[in-house]
């Protein structure tokens, strides 16, 4: 099961006291120079040629006042959930906007670079500066982990959705005329795909008010008994909806499978080629219209 990209898994980072001190020192610097740092960040990013116009949306959400308060609550008051959720939303948005992994990671790098001069500027000793540097790292690690996780999970969902779309494309139901549907079946069929085929066909009959459907198996190299059964079931189900299903393009091998199955061939209107099948279909429809 794919996780929900917006659900935060770990509610708070497990930091030692020393780490918390480091991060809070970093926050002091960031908070004190918030606008300047973000301006520097924007400049840094605009210098990157490959980042493009999408970067505008990324930079603004790092800079807004609400984000600042959420981060303050997290770093200084140990209230992490809202901030982590905001990071997750950001990750999801980047994935949905098609921003690449490299692009949003480069924002994080640019942030560190932008922060640099302001850390040096501070009247602090080297130990303090090291502490702040560590703090920046701890913070950006958390941010990257949450954004990255949500980004990844969103991408995974996108891939699954695309696979679903491809599966739908591979079971097309074509309307040839007012009451005639053609379902050309191509490739290997497994039980799952067979079920989809049947569902598509039956829904097609209902939606398009078809009275004859032609299932063409020319593109199906082999069938096993499960699939053959499914085929028979589809023919029977179509009949329950008042439609006649013709099966065309059965290869010699597939014919043998059907015979071996003990399929009642009188139940199956099989016609050699697709062309002959379509002619037969037209006759069936014409005859019915004469009433």
């Amino acid at each position, binding site marked *: 099961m794919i996780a929900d990209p917006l659900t935060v898994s770990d509610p708070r980072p497990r930091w030692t006291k020393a780490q918390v001190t480091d991060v809070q020192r970093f926050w002091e610097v960031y908070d004190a120079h918030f606008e300047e740092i973000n301006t520097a960040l924007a400049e840094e990013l605009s210098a990157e040629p490959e980042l493009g116009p999408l970067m505008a949306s990324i930079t603004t959400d790092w800079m807004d006042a609400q984000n600042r308060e959420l981060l303050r609550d997290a770093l200084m008051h140990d209230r992490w959930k809202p901030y982590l959720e905001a990071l997750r939303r950001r990750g999801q948005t980047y994935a949905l906007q098609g921003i690449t992994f490299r692009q949003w990671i480069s924002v994080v790098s640019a942030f560190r670079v932008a922060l640099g001069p302001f850390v040096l500027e501070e009247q602090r000793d080297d130990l303090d500066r090291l502490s702040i540097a560590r703090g920046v790292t701890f913070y950006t690690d958390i941010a990257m982990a949450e954004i990255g996780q949500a980004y990844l999970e969103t991408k995974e969902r996108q891939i699954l959705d695309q696979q679903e779309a491809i599966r739908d494309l591979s079971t097309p139901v074509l309307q040839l005329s007012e009451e005639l549907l053609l379902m050309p079946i191509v490739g290997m069929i497994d039980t799952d795909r067979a079920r989809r085929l049947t*569902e598509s066909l039956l829904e097609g009959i209902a939606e398009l*008010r078809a009275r004859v459907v032609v299932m063409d198996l020319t593109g199906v190299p082999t069938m096993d008994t499960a699939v053959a059964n499914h085929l028979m079931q589809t023919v029977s189900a179509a009949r329950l909806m008042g439609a006649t299903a013709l099966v065309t393009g059965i290869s010699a091998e597939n014919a043998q499978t059907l015979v071996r199955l003990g399929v009642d061939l009188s139940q199956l209107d099989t016609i050699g080629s697709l062309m002959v099948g379509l002619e037969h279909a037209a006759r069936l429809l014409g005859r019915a219209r004469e*009433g």
Partner: protein
Amino acid sequence: MRVPILKQGEYLIATVQAGSGDGDMTQLMHDVSYQVGSTRARGVVLDVSALDVLDSYSTRTLRTIAHTTRLRGATTVIVGIQPEVAFAMIQLGLGLDGVPTALDLEAGLRVLRLELDTRDAAAPS
């Protein structure tokens, strides 16, 4: 939930309501049989589009209605079996065994018209 039966010319049209149970179907069987007799209807359209499940009992009852009406000189067409209901019926191993079916009321009336015209044409004058 008594199924209302409408008369349209030589035909009877009965629309089964959603959530009908066994008792309703049995009642329908009696009502249709009676009405065919009393109105001399020649065709019956049974609309089951509101049914979300057709199990073994309902399917058997539909078949019985069709056979009973035929014995009384009328043809019954079952219309409106939904795609997913048809699929489930077949998986369950149920069929309507030669009882005419059609997509909806309009298609069902057309089927009846066609059959009755054929029968009339074939009848000895």
